[in-house]
């Protein structure tokens, strides 16, 4: 089941620069998308979401962009901080109360 894909297993960024994490999906029925951050041995922590009626949602240093025609979303973190180092998962869902389909995750490392 590869409905949600994160093709970059890892990303390394210098502190203060922009981190861009990418996610592609194949199911056009998805109508909301979420980004989660996960530390080892902890549960996923919600970061930011976007519904399919929008193309951008911003919350502080985090911005999610959705390109429905390309079935692509991205998470921008600016400026990146060492505390942002974690695994980032994108997830997608298609109805209220429905399951989330997760990508494989991208491990972000922000170097001081």
């Amino acid at each position: 089941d590869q409905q949600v894909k994160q093709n970059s297993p890892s990303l390394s960024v210098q502190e203060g620069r922009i981190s861009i994490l990418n996610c592609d999906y194949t199911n056009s029925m998805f109508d909301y998308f979420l980004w989660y951050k996960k530390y080892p041995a902890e549960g996923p922590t919600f970061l930011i979401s976007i519904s399919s009626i929008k193309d951008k949602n911003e919350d502080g240093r985090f911005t999610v962009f959705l390109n429905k025609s390309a079935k692509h979303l991205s998470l921008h973190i600016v400026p990146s901080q060492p505390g942002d180092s974690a695994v980032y998962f994108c997830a997608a869902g298609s109805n209220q109360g429905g399951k989330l389909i997760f990508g494989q995750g991208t491990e972000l490392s922000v170097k001081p």
Partner: protein
Amino acid sequence: EPEVTQTPSHQVTQMGQEVILRCVPISNHLYFYWYRQILGQKVEFLVSFYNNEISEKSEIFDDQFSVERPDGSNFTLKIRSTKLEDSAMYFCASSDPNYGYTFGSGTRLTVV
């Protein structure tokens, strides 16, 4: 901030034994879920629960698995006869009607 609470944090069991993983979802949430993450793999949906019944389940959720909401606050996942390949992190989650998913910290299940 409301939390989803999971117990125990780590469970070691012998192959063939039954285990029960426990979760206390957020009190005003209506949808409840179990997900799991095998080491090095992505987070996978197991089952969703709404209005005291299973609303959706994945092919992973076979007859060895069951869920229950016995008392209006706890939400449990039972694995009847554990196998080595059931070793994983199990995450409980709950959501409100506005797609507000919250995950617990997880239970690490080790089957030996």
